[in-house]
């Protein structure tokens, strides 16, 4: 039986209708809802707070500019994450095309990106605080994943999105999400084997 209350998804649809009419206050409400998960998605993709905030800012500017193209057939959160993910991957592609990376293979180029990202500004979640050894080890292990595996793992483990929603965000089949998350888990577990033994 329908309770008469709007679901979160319906609230988001209502907000999007207001935003499409140019309502900035509604846009601020949408920002408040999704800035945190989106910021953390970017942070977990690069472990660089400053870069993550840049990505967050640009994503919401793109969401505003693309507001007319939104169609209420899917979840608003999925649409926003898609925009963020596309922007992230486009920026990565640009970086990897630069001559600096011309001779590097995929993993090597990514390692360079991670190192560059880690050197930029505040790579620790708290200014002035150093990440613990375990956190550092996990960051290094996750940073070593390919972008595809990392995005699937981050969305599943850190963002806790259902596989079906991850599939919509990454625009791949659910089965592919499942296998990428599993491969990422296996890879990370091998890389963190020493840490896991210490915990036991």
């Amino acid at each position: 039986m329908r309770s008469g209350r709007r679901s979160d998804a319906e609230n988001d649809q209502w907000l999007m209708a207001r935003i499409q009419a140019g309502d900035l206050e509604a846009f601020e409400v949408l920002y408040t809802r999704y800035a945190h998960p989106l910021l953390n998605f970017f942070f977990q993709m690069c472990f660089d707070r400053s870069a993550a905030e840049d990505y967050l800012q640009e994503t919401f500017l793109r969401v505003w500019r693309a507001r007319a193209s939104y169609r209420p057939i899917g979840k608003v959160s999925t649409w926003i994450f898609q925009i963020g993910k596309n922007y992230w991957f486009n920026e990565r592609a640009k970086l990897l095309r630069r001559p600096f990376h011309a001779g590097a293979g995929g993993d090597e180029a990514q390692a360079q990106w991670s190192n560059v990202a880690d050197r930029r500004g505040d790579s620790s979640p708290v200014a002035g605080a150093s990440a613990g050894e375990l956190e550092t080890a996990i960051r290094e292990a996750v940073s070593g994943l390919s972008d595809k595996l990392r995005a699937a793992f981050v969305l599943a483990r850190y963002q806790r999105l259902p596989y079906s929603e991850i599939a919509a965000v990454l625009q791949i089949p659910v089965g592919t999400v499942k296998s990428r998350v599993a491969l990422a888990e296996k890879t990370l577990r091998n890389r963190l084997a020493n840490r896991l033994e210490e915990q036991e």
Partner: protein
Amino acid sequence: MSGGGFPDHSDLVALALGQLDPERERAVRATAAADPAVAREIQAIEHHLELHDAIPEIDPAPGVWLAVASGIAGPTTPAPRSLLYRFRYAAAAAAILAAAFLWPHPGAGMPPAERLFGSPVRTADGGYTCASIARLRLGDGVTVTMDSGARVGLPGKDRIQLHAGRVFFEVEKRRRGLVVEAGELRIVTLGTSFLVQRDGPGLAAVAVERGRIRYERNGSGGEVGPGESYPAGAVGQADLRGWFTRPTLEANLTDPTTLRVVLRNEMPDTIELAPPTGGEPLFYAGFAGHDFGLSPHSSPLLTESVALAPGGELGMELHLPRPVPSGEPLLLSYPVLGLRVEVRR
């Protein structure tokens, strides 16, 4: 565990992440019950995934929204309807929410919440956050006043998590035993009102106004009573209630480099406005891709404390470092912690 059969590794990872549908989950668990190798593998995956709790979450700096708002308020978008519009996001958001959200939204296990003030927004995990100060009753006998940007989670009926920011809790005696967690700091309420703030991992503090709380952190603990805080001195008593009794802002642009701001006390108490310490900006203003802080030096009326009676107004002029182009929207915000307010009854 044999390779290539059922369940395969991806099933086990999906199980550990809670992603399997009930039927498949039952099948995997039945296999695990019959095959110790499968059970061990599930345990190993769960153990590994738990390790990732070490990666903390971060919160966006307030300047990100200001930059977004400045960026979209350019010449390609229609000009806002009025100057007031630009400075009253909080009130406008409250109006939107009143229409858009039917309160309450219960969190997991927590009785229905009731909005009392401001515009709290429900988060994807069933908790609440707010762009500007908000107050809500979380079920029976628990009232929280959230500072802007604060974020709480409601994982259970008797458990509240403070993920970020600061929140003033008023807990009735009959709800004693309610647990508030702020990172490693765990607070057990004993019928009390208290302020908890969390600025990051390991940077949580609690101050008690009345009643008592018991705290635990990293295996040690103690009790905190009225007028005390843990860690000692971490939260000033003047901050306890004053911070959420703050004035609203209105503005009139009289010339391109001067912003006239009126602070009006809409609260029933006399409040004392004191300039921020440490020289931090009092306001932030932004337009056309620029944003800058306006320090007390550019607002001489607030270089010393001023008492504002209920309904009283204080006008002051802020001088902008560069003129606002004609017709250019300008956004003004003031950081919550920047304006220190003390309530006097």
